[in-house]
């Protein structure tokens, strides 16, 4: 589905990623973990076609991103950005409906049925009571869920998410991860930057660990997310705690 080969990324003359090869298939859910400043967001931007990589090729369904028209690319690839202006004037529902843009035929013929779909997404992300509330008056966590609802409204084949759990309380972290895992089960490909290895171990089937100096091991989460790997990744002591069906990691 999404394939990168020989990918190198530099930011301000500093090499962050060198020669990365990556293949994200339909139905897979990938976690991208790493310390601050290792190039997670830059990698996501490159994979989304928003920044040209220094070297390498990125393809979606066998077609280079650079050769794919913007609107067609938006049907294949969508991204949740880490930061976004919060001064949108419309309601939460209006905001989510903007995700429909790549599928609307022209600016003059807005579709009418997506309202129902947007409302369902807002219910799924527990924002139903904020439907008509101005988006800019939502709290940080509510805005984050509205932004995720907009990405789900866009419904691309491959979803890239930069820190989907930021600003969210524990209950809504669970709501969001369950919603995202359901999209993977439905055949979408997901790659998300996470700072929560516990969530990665629980909801993602693959992981990519981004070290300084460009070492980028990848593989199934149950093999890669070990105490030793995480301690070396985050440069701190980490204690694994097991509960039924869950592997948690606690920094010490």
């Amino acid at each position, binding site marked *: 589905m999404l394939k990168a080969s020989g990918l190198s990324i530099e930011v301000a003359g500093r090499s962050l990623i060198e020669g990365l090869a990556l293949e994200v298939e339909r139905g897979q859910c990938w976690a991208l973990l790493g310390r601050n400043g290792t190039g997670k967001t830059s990698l996501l931007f490159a994979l989304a076609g928003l920044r040209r990589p220094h070297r390498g090729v990125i393809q979606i369904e066998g077609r280079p991103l650079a050769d794919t028209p913007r609107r067609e690319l938006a049907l294949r690839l969508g991204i949740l*950005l880490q930061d976004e202006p919060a001064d949108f004037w419309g309601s939460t529902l209006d905001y989510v409906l903007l995700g429909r*843009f790549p599928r609307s035929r022209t600016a003059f013929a807005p579709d009418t049925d997506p309202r129902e779909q947007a409302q369902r997404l807002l219910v799924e992300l527990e924002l139903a009571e904020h439907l008509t509330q101005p988006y800019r008056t939502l709290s940080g966590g509510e805005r984050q869920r509205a932004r995720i609802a907009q990405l789900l409204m866009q419904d691309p084949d491959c979803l890239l998410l930069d820190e989907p759990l930021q600003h969210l309380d524990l209950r809504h972290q669970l709501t969001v991860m369950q919603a995202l895992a359901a999209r993977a089960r439905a055949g979408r490909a997901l790659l998300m930057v996470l700072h929560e290895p516990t969530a990665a171990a629980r909801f993602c089937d693959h992981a990519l660990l981004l070290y300084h100096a460009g070492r980028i091991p990848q593989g199934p989460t149950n093999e890669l997310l070990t105490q030793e790997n995480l301690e070396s990744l985050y440069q701190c002591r980490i204690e694994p705690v097991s509960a039924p069906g869950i592997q948690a990691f606690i920094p010490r």
Partner: protein
Amino acid sequence: MKPSAWLIVLAVPASLLWALWQGSVDIPARDLLSALGGGGDEVTREIVWGLRAPRALSAFVCGALLALAGALLQVLLRNPLADPFILGVSGGASVGALAAMLAGAALALQHLFALAGAALAAAAIFAFSLRPSGWNAYRVVLAGAALSAGFGAIVSLLLTLAPAAQVQGMLFWLLGDLSGAKDPLAAWVVLALAALAAQTQAASLDILTLGEDKARSLGVAVTSVQTLVFVAAAAATMAAVLLGGALGFVGLVVPHLLRLVGYYGHRALLPLSVALGGSFLAAADALARSVAAPIELPAGVVTALIGVPTLLYLLLKLR
């Protein structure tokens, strides 16, 4: 359509009718209507069709162009205080026209110089702001502020050098004044083209409020949309400035008023800006002609006197 939208649409014929009615000669409403229908006496017909109609249509089109340009620039620059004159177009036009006046050029040549000055200013802003990676809003604002300051200095210099008799005529370019506006046809053509071009991009403009990266990821061809809309805004501003001078506050206040009453989506905001901006200036100009008759106030003074308190009120209301 919301009731307030109907009110704004109705304000178009209402403001134009009022502008045709107001003036130094009192015309009873019945005579006005019969003159509009081609009847009545010749003098009344000449006043209505020959004098007041071109003036009312000029005022309307100037207001519509400025409000459209303001609405477009506020979203493109992501700056609520952006107004049409941020592109330095009015400064460029003033310098061109004043230089031509000082050189003793004929009126037609003055307008040609004003057009050249405005076009040069817009071209300079574009050259400073368009990069291979796309438009840079900060550069537009900073280059616009720098150019406007530069043009302001040149205007002051020209006014200092000008003979006292010429200074009065020069004020037109600085204050905004519709008393010389007699042929609004070109401005109406620009309005039609700019409004149509902008309307085709209404949905993309909604998405651009989320930032350029998000807009790209949702399939908006950001640089092309920005270029088309910048050109439309610059053309609209130029057409308005050449017809009516630097008429302040219409472009700044009208789009904000509409957003505050709930028209934030550009499909509605853009056409309603045209309708409300046009009606506002047509009515303001009629007021300017009648309030201290037979003295005519410059319309820019009336728009500023209404616009300043409105803007301050909006600032209080905005969180």
